[in-house]
């Protein structure tokens, strides 16, 4: 008698637990489902029809958003910026982290603490002087200018993560490479970088997401439609076609699909990376 009672209580507990978790999970997924379903609707009925599975499905919305809504250009720009910034960050931060960890030069510690300090001090309005600087350098509305700014944004954390990684690397491997005739650059390329693959994965994923989702610097620095990345393109589109919700939703979906795919493919790295970022922060 008593055991069945316990069992009933346990079942009740587990049902309550799962209904709590499922309702939160649904609240995470539903807005996305709603976005995709709105992106497939007819502009005539999108404001009035409310079924989750609309009668007429219009895939042509995606073509219109891509071609006429200019989302194709925005998408390719985002791909370009993300690739350029991430490649830049990987090379520049790994060279610097290797130097901070293994090589010696005057002022090394000062420079390193400069990077650490930059992560600790919040400067919420830093875009104001940055904008002034970029206009003085003639880098307003320039792809290169935006890429350099975004590389700078990702550098401190990437250097810190890689330096902690290189510090733990066994020196024997480098000695062996040195005996084989490798120089500094050779050791960095053939020994340090391959070993740092787990840390590099975290850096690549986090910086990709960060650049892909970046909005404010793009808004301040780029005003030519041909150079805009997706997030800025979405806001520009919304400003110009405020009633074309079917195309806007298609644009949002175009912008979100790569992010969600990368996340689903790499979520182990992301969770692990988050834990290490949390410890650093």
């Amino acid at each position, binding site marked *: 008698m008593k055991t069945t009672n316990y069992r009933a209580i346990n079942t009740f507990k587990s049902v309550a637990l799962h209904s709590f978790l499922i309702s939160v999970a649904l609240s995470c997924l539903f807005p996305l489902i709603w976005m995709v379903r709105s992106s497939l609707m007819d502009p005539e009925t999108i404001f*009035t029809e409310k079924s989750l599975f609309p009668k007429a499905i219009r895939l042509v919305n995606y073509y219109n958003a891509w071609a006429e809504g200019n989302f194709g250009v925005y998408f390719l720009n985002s791909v370009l910026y993300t690739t350029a910034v991430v490649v830049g960050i990987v090379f520049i931060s790994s*060279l610097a982290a290797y130097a*901070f960890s293994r090589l010696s030069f005057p002022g090394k510690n000062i420079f390193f603490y400069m990077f650490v300090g930059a992560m600790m001090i919040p400067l*919420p309005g830093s875009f104001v002087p940055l904008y002034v600087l970029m206009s003085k350098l003639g880098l307003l509305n320039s792809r290169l200018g935006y890429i350099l700014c975004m590389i700078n944004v990702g550098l401190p954390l990437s250097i810190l993560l890689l330096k902690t990684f290189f510090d733990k690397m066994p020196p024997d491997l480098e000695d062996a490479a040195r005996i084989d005739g490798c120089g*500094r650059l050779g050791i960095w390329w053939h020994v340090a970088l391959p070993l740092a693959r787990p840390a590099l994965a975290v850096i690549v994923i986090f910086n990709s997401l960060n650049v892909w989702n970046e909005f404010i610097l793009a808004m301040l620095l780029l005003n030519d439609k041909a150079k805009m990345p997706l*997030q800025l393109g979405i806001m520009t589109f919304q400003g110009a076609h405020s009633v074309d919700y079917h195309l806007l939703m298609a644009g949002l979906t175009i*912008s*979100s699909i790569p992010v969600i795919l990368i996340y689903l493919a790499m979520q182990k790295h992301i*969770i692990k990376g988050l834990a290490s970022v949390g410890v650093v922060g």
Partner: protein
Amino acid sequence: MTDSFPKKLVFKDSLKNFLFAFPAIAIFCIFYIVPFIEVFRLSLMEWNGTFPPPEFIGADNFIEQAQDKLWWGSMVNAGFITIIALTFQNILAFALALACDREIKARRFYRVVFFIPPVLSEIVVGIIWQWILYSGMQGGEHIGLLNYLLAKTGLPHLVHNWLSDPKTALACISIVHCWKGFGWGFVLFLAGLQTIDKQLYEAAKVDGAGGWNVFRHITVPMMAPIIVVVMILTVLGSMQIFIVMIAMVGQGGLADYTSVPVLQILFSMNGAKRFGYACSQSIIFGLILICVSAFFKIISNRVKQA
């Protein structure tokens, strides 16, 4: 002669080493250090961003700021969002982490799903929710899903202009902000919970401790460092919220009831064309953020010692 030769070698060696770090240092100095110094210089100037050149006005910007009601009002709005995030978002994140820190079915599924909102961009999140909260009507039907559902489920008195009514706009934005943010806290809390030695729980059970006591005397103290990290990240993230606002109520949302400090800085710069004032605002705001983070650090150290 024999002395200077090795010296020269050492110098050459350090120079080569320095070249490894040079690209990073150069980019960082140009795009971080120079603007950082400029912020302080410009904060003492009155300047419209172009011509005439900056004019030195001493601390006038800071004095004006102290009396700027819009500015402090925006700080109160950000504070409101931060308090909602600190309580509602973090308690939800902690509860979910506790629920997932045990052998339950579909644990991985939940963990994957809860972190989807944080990887989306703020623009996307803002626009999706703006679409759901939309308050217009067409052909006798509500356009926004929320109002439609309220009307259909017999709650028509709750139908509302969610984002254009000052009373509800900020609350809606706070909730969307929490929706986007709780996944971060969840993942960090869960990582922390998983480092707690399960034997501690067993030992407590043997000693006859109930669920609440285990939570109060084992879980919370063991989690204290992570709780502090999450709280500091929440404060920094919520006080600096603004992109979600641009996406949900537009940049014209500068009407004081939904303005936040970063939007004010942006407006001082782009709207009012007062670059010096924007810089002084960003200095004061940065100082406030540092003070709040330091406050949490000190509290956590106190708790640790006690």
